[in-house]
Every structure is written in structure tokens, then in C-alpha cells.
């Protein structure tokens, strides 16, 4: 008998969500930067470290709930982002929408399966895993082979003289009880997903991660970006545990890259998407 796997559930299920979200937005507005927000939360925390017997159980496979498309912000409706974009980033987003209305959609990360990076990886639709230890938490994503490390051993960020921008940036954090609080910077910004905004390298974020019930891990995320955003962009990122019956074949697998192509997707001259030539008769098509 084929083991069955559970279906996704609704994104944010709290009936008071609109009020909660508004409070969260206002909370972010109190601070000039994510770092200021982070330091305020750190002051409020009694014990910022975990002992091995305090490590929360975030084991298992997790996925973004809800149907397609999975927006970065679950409250996004159609192509109307909830990010308050400004300047060239607002213009870039508008260009994406105009092209889409004309039937031209190109995902810049389609070609080689490269990591979407942070923060886009949060919304990836394939399974996620969390490896929690007292000193580091790893967030792994199957789609695009994402690996993000959050250091909770008390270290600070990479010193500015040594820092450089990477796909997932530099994340540090601390624990407040069973809540993981993070600060991230030195990302490449970039694309958050199809019909979603681009962000800049000025991006910094604060996240509050917690397991709210046996089936749910959530992260409240505030993104500050002085180049791309007029105001902090608050979203709640929900991950639901994938139900696996005994014997389930599902694992977090290495995903794909250019060395194991099975469909080469290219950008068309007018900014759309299509397949490279194929006739399904030889290995070149793979």
C-alpha cells in the first residue's frame, strides 16, 4: 500500500489575524532598524542560551501551507504585494507586473536551480528541515538546495571589514525560552519569488521563530531595507509539518543543478519563459 502524505493547511488560521498583523506592523515601526529591534528584544530576554536538554523538537519535514501560488506574504492577493516599495524597486516590481499582464513571466532563478537565498527561501514550496542545536540552527530547504545557518553561540556578525554579501547572508540569534530570535544582514537581497518584489543588499531583518503547536512552526519576520522599502515589511511565515505514515518514502533530497538538467528553461527575447529545444530522443534533452 502506498503511504499517504497529508495535505497542506490554511496559511494563518487565527481568526484575529488582521488585528494581530496590525500590531506586528506597528511593532516594527517603533524601530529605525532591525538591529535596534533585535537589541531591544535581547535586553528583554532573561536567558539567551539553550542547554542541550532545552533544545526544542523541530524535527521532521515541513512545508509552506496553502495552495499555489505561495506568496512570500500569505496575505498577498494576486500580484498586489504588501511590501511598501520605493524608488527603483517599486519601478522594477511594476515592470514585472506589466510583463506578466502581457503573458511574459521569467523567473531569474529558473535556469540552473541556484539558491534563491534569504529571504526568498522562506517561501519555497518544497520541504524544509530545521536542525536545532544549542549553538547553531540550520534551516535546510530542498528546493534550490538552500542551507542557512543561524549562530546562537553568542558571536556577533562578521566584522564589517571582513563581511561580504552572500545568498543567505549572515544570521545571528539568541533564544528566549523556546523562541529563536534572529538578526540577518549581508545578503544579496534579490528576488523573493515569482510576481514578488526584489530587495536590496541593504536588507536586514529580524525574525521570531517558534513552534506554536505540534504541527506548526511560525516565524514573524520584519524586513528593513532602506533602499527598497519605505517602511518595514512584516510577514508571518508558516510551516506545517508534513504528515508521514510509517514507511513514507519522503526525504529531504538534493534537488537539482545544471549538471543534472532535466528541462533547460531559458528566457525568451521578450522576457518570457520557454524550454530549450528538445525532442525527447537523446540524453541532451535531460
Amino acid at each position, binding site marked *: 500500500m*502506498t503511504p*499517504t*502524505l497529508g*495535505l*497542506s493547511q490554511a496559511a494563518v488560521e487565527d481568526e484575529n489575524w488582521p488585528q494581530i498583523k496590525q500590531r506586528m506592523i506597528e511593532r516594527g515601526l517603533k524601530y529605525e532598524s532591525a538591529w535596534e529591534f533585535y537589541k531591544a528584544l535581547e535586553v528583554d530576554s532573561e536567558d539567551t542560551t539553550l542547554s542541550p536538554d532545552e533544545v526544542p523538537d523541530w524535527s521532521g519535514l515541513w512545508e509552506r501551507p*496553502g*495552495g*499555489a*501560488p*505561495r506568496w512570500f506574504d500569505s496575505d498577498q492577493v494576486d500580484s498586489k504585494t504588501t511590501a511598501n516599495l520605493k524608488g527603483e524597486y517599486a519601478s522594477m516590481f511594476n515592470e514585472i507586473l506589466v510583463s506578466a499582464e502581457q*503573458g*511574459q*513571466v*521569467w*523567473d531569474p532563478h*529558473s535556469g540552473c*536551480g541556484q539558491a534563491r537565498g534569504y529571504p526568498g527561501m522562506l517561501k519555497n*514550496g*518544497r*520541504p524544509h528541515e530545521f536542525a536545532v542545536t544549542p549553538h547553531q540552527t540550520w534551516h535546510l530547504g*530542498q*528546493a534550490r538546495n538552500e542551507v542557512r545557518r543561524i549562530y546562537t553561540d553568542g558571536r556577533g556578525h562578521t566584522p564589517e571589514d571582513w563581511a561580504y554579501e552572500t545568498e543567505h547572508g549572515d544570521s545571528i540569534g539568541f533564544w528566549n525560552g523556546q523562541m529563536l530570535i534572529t538578526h540577518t544582514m549581508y545578503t544579496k537581497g534579490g528576488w523573493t519569488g*515569482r510576481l514578488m518584489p526584489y530587495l536590496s543588499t541593504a536588507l536586514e531583518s529580524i525574525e521570531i521563530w517558534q513552534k506554536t503547536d505540534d504541527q506548526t512552526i511560525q516565524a514573524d519576520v520584519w524586513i528593513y531595507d532602506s533602499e527598497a522599502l519605505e517602511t518595514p515589511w512584516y510577514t508571518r511565515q508558516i510551516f506545517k509539518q508534513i504528515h508521514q505514515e510509517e514507511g*513514507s*518514502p*519522503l526525504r529531504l*533530497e*538534493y*534537488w*537539482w543543478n545544471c549538471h*543534472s538538467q*532535466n*528541462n533547460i*528553461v531559458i528566457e525568451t527575447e521578450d522576457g*518570457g*519563459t*520557454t*524550454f530549450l529545444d*528538445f*525532442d*525527447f*530522443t537523446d540524453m541532451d*534533452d*535531460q
Partner: protein
Amino acid sequence: MKNTYLKALSILLYTLIGFVCISASISAHHSAEMFNRDEIVTLTGTVKEFRYINPHSWLIVDIDNDDGSTTTWGFEGEGPQDMMHGGVRKGDLPPGAKITITGNPMRDGRPAAMWQTIIKEDGTLLNWRTPGRD
């Protein structure tokens, strides 16, 4: 005659299911704009190969044309994780299996489509598009 009628009815039903699924589906790894999601083709043929891999599975099917020639079509599905969600195993579609498959054809006329549903020769429906998934 009755079997033929029932099979035709099944194909119509599953085609309609396919249309319902299409309205909510967007391919996860790349835009699906190369497929015409307002159109659906229903073809009967023989499985040549089932590439059960990330990021997208491909079902390669030989379709017999009315003039006696054969065209090899490719049907793009999602990766194994989504196939598992829908209960579709690699062994369900071995080479040589006779199937009727529905999909959204390429806009440019090349012989490929976005895979929607399959009916095997014994009438079994394979639909990896479980509700709410892309």
C-alpha cells in the same frame, strides 16, 4: 460499446478535473507560461520513459498519429515529492504501459504539455495534482 462509452465519459470527467486543477496551478520551479492553460489535449499512447526526478518529472510517451507515424511527446509534471503526495510511484508508469493522458500543450506547437491526469489501460486514474498544491 458500454466500455467505450464509460471510457469516454471518464476521459471527459478527468479532463474537467484537469481544467479545475489548472486554474489554481503554477509550476513551481519555472513559470508555466510556455503552456497554454486554456487548452487541454487528450492523447492515447505508450510510455517510453518516466523520468522521476527533481525539479520536474517528465513522462515521455509515444503517440501514434492517424497517418501511421509516431510522435514522441514529453509531459512535464512536478518532482517526486509532489508525485508522492498524489500517490504516483515510479513503477506505476513502466515503459510499454498504455495510457490516456491529458495536458496543456505548448503554445509554440512543439510536442510537449503540462501533465494533468492519466488513465491507465485498466482504468486507474493517476492524478498527482492533489488539491492545494502547485
